């Protein structure tokens, strides 16, 4: 609550911290107040605006085509019209963030909690519930779901892309079940790469630094000028360990990856895309291996071998008259060899989407899809296994939505539902109703009700996880084991949202969203019986039986506030503040052992960011980011404030040079707990980057 007052709060208790805090507040004040003073001193339009306009209209068409323009701070139109809490990170935002990975870029999105666990792992949550995998956020890359049904969630360390080829990342906070499918309970992260039409030429970028020790990205793209375009890329990096208080630097991360994309447009009606990636990486990890035989429990430090590939084909047809459809299919292969388990997986997915208008400003969207994910999990350590060891997860979906425009399209209503069935569930519905009102040209108000589901995964239905708790006096080991729960159901959400966007004076934009989520059948850890002597598997041991259940219910509520202001054409300021309150409790008859508190205490109640992006003439850009995250009591993590800075020099058309500093306010800080061993802290880091594009 203490942090309610100021946007940026540093931990108390040190004199220097107070000085820093003082400076931060002064800076904030200066940023907030100064431009108003300026605004009086000179017209709000950029200097020479009138003359420039007079000059522009006298240009020939050819000359006009060569005028460089600034990017307005205005939000893209499709964002403006979306009745959901959507935020778009553009290529420019990503480049200017200095991030070298997608998770680090996501730190800029309001309401998204990104915490680094170690050099190659993160906890990324939306509106709460962040964890190593985060089971209620759906992640897609170019329409390919990268959420795994094995342990429910996203392995971010294998979702690498050449960031220069990312067109945008759309983050939808809140449930998106109707359109996006199961597991889009708390949000959707939709990563979209550029069309190969937009990546012609050669591009090489080299990075060297103290944590991002080395990274090289290279791409070549071309086209035949007649609708066919392509690109190929390769990337490799070596990321050093973060800070380990015990000196055991296990988390080095090395990766090589390559891929391609081909786009073909046959006239204006049909567009075809084929793309694929292949990767091989080693991620250092420290895991607990539990075995029925002595020594029962060991910590293993070593390197997980992760490799895989995917290929996707998409056909889009625009038929005119508001009619279009899309057919997409992909295949994804995953080889995951961790120190304590393995997953070898083939996923096939096919999706069809169609839209057509109906009389009376109605637009119908519908689609069907199917996914088969066949996984094999050879047992690596005896205390962690899946039964059966080889399974096929199935998903069948269908959806129907009607967007109705009323009162000259000032009001639009979207009604729809998703129908789905998995190998673990019967047919289930995910309906939603959304309302968007545009009272004036510069304002939108929207509200939504959504019912969304997180479907059962192999982790609940086919997974056995053993934990060693100690040896008894008679020398027999005592274990607790989560057994597979054949009755685990989908987790349910009923979400209520309200949002407001306003564009003031062409250069100030404000987005406020509030939500109230009610969760039912929520994930719990249940004790299901008294300890007993189990003789098989050998040796004999005492076992406390447990399982994952649906024993919790609860609510979350919160507000996200994201203003943006472009005081000058060359200067953009963005801020965000998000507030989150989580209240979970045991449902009636729940056997939960106490999951509610630790879950509530693992997401920050307050988060704030302040971003400044400045262009100095054409040649330089300077970007500063301040971030505040409040404490995570259940993780033993204190609140922190830190900053990133990036200086870029665009030397002519071909070269640019950047220096990026990250996590600058302290030599290291903690963001999330890691297990086993002491927590790993995020180091202050600096890197240099040279980019050549031709």
């Amino acid at each position, binding site marked *: 609550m203490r942090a309610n007052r100021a946007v940026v709060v540093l931990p108390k*208790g*040190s004199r*220097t*911290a107070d*000085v*820093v805090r003082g*400076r*931060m507040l002064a*800076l904030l004040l*200066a*940023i907030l107040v100064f*431009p108003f003073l300026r605004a009086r001193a000179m017209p709000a339009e950029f200097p020479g*605006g009138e003359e*420039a*306009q007079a000059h*522009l*209209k006298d*240009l020939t*068409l050819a000359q*006009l*085509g*060569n*005028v*460089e*323009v*600034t990017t*307005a701070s*205005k939000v893209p*139109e499709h964002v403006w*019209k979306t009745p959901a809490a959507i935020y778009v990170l553009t290529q420019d935002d990503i480049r200017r963030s200095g991030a070298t990975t997608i998770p680090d870029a996501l730190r800029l999105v309001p309401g998204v909690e990104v915490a680094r666990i170690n050099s190659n792992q993160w906890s990324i949550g939306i509106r709460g519930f962040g964890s190593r995998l985060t089971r209620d956020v759906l992640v897609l890359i170019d329409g390919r779901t990268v959420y795994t049904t094995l342990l429910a969630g996203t392995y971010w360390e294998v979702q690498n892309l050449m960031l220069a080829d990312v067109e945008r990342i759309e983050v939808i906070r809140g449930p998106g079940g109707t359109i996006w499918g199961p597991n889009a309970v708390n949000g959707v992260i939709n990563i979209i790469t550029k069309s190969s039409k937009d990546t012609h030429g050669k591009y090489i970028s080299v990075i060297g630094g103290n944590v991002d020790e080395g990274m090289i990205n290279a791409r070549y793209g071309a086209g035949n000028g007649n609708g066919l375009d392509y690109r190929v890329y390769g990337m490799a990096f070596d990321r050093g360990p973060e800070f380990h*208080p015990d000196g055991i630097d296990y988390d080095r991360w090395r990766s090589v990856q390559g891929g391609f994309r081909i786009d073909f447009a046959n006239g*204006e*009606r049909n567009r075809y895309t084929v793309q694929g990636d292949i990767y091989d990486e080693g991620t250092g990890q420290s895991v607990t291996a539990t075995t029925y035989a002595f020594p029962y429990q060991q910590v293993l430090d070593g390197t997980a071998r992760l490799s895989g590939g995917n290929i996707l084909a998409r056909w889009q047809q*625009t038929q*005119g008259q*508001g009619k279009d459809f899309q057919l997409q299919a992909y295949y994804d292969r995953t080889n995951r060899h961790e120190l304590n388990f393995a997953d070898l997986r083939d996923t096939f997915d096919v999706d069809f989407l169609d839209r057509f208008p109906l009389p009376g400003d109605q637009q119908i969207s519908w689609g069907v899809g199917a996914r088969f994910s066949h996984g094999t999990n050879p047992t690596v350590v005896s205390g962690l296994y899946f039964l059966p060891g080889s399974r096929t997860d199935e998903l069948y979906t269908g959806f129907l939505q009607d*967007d109705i*425009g009323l009162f*000259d*399209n000032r009001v639009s209503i979207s009604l729809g539902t998703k129908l789905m069935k998995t190998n673990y569930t019967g047919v289930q519905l995910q309906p939603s109703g959304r309302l968007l009102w*545009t009272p004036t*040209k510069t304002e939108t108000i929207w509200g939504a009700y959504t019912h969304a589901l997180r479907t059962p995964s192999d982790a609940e239905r086919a997974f056995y996880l053993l934990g060693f708790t100690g040896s008894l006096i008679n020398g027999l080991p005592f274990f607790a084991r989560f057994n597979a729960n054949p009755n685990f159901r989908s987790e349910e959400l009923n979400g209520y949202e309200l949002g407001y966007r306003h564009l003031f004076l*062409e250069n100030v934009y404000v987005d406020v969203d509030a939500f109230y989520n009610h969760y039912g059948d929520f994930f719990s850890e249940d004790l299901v019986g008294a300890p007993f002597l189990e003789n098989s598997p050998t040796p004999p041991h005492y076992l406390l039986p447990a399982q994952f259940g649906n024993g919790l219910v609860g609510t979350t509520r919160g507000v996200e506030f994201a203003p943006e202001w472009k005081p*000058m*054409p060359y*200067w953009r300021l963005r801020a965000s503040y998000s507030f989150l309150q989580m209240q979970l409790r045991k449902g009636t008859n729940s056997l939960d052992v106490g999951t509610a508190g630790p879950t509530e205490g693992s997401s920050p109640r307050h988060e704030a960011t302040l971003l400044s992006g*400045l262009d*100095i*003439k054409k040649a330089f850009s*300077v970007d*500063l980011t301040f971030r505040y995250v409040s404490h995570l009591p259940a993780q033993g993590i*204190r609140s922190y404030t830190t*900053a990133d800075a990036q200086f870029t020099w665009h030397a002519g058309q071909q070269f640019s040079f950047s220096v990026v500093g990250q996590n*600058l*306010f*302290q*030599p290291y800080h*903690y963001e999330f707990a890691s297990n086993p061993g*002491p*927590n790993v802290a995020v180091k202050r880091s600096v890197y240099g980057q040279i980019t050549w594009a031709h």
Partner: protein
Amino acid sequence: MKPGGRSRSVFSRSSALASFLFCLSSLFLLCPNICLGQESKPTESQVKAAYLYNFGKFVEWPSGRGAVSGSFQICVLGRDPFGAVLDSTVNGESVAGKKISVQRIHRVQDAAGCNILFVSSSEESHLTSILGEARRMRLLTVSDIPHFAERGGVIGLVRQEDRIRFEVNRSTAEESHLLLSSELLKVAVRVIERKPKS
């Protein structure tokens, strides 16, 4: 963890850095007047407005058009992205001997007196019906909606890197009885000869 012991060194080292960042930030605040020698670029809206004004000069207009009001009308359909920029661009200018005026309209049915119809991206969801109407009314349709020319608009403004260029659909122009000058077709980044299938 021993947070107390650590925090001292954390902040003493960071204080120099924080000061540096603070000074740097303060510099930026003063910067606009002092260090940016003003070669600021025009906005997208300004360039698009200039195009709208210019396009009028490269089209042979069917006779009788706009005769009712006696002015050359540029109409903006839907949410206006230009604000005052468009008005100031065309202020006092004329095309084909007629004074240019700017109208904001909310339904394509109100476009009867228009010469140039700029279709705002707010109207994308019912673009097809708008374009059908516009062809019937013989309007020069212009928009920055993606693939506008492909979808049956006459001129689509497209952004290429930091520049605004345009595509022309010649078939739509013919259907709308608009004669486009060769210079317009020469400068277009793409000339589409096909009709959108209807």
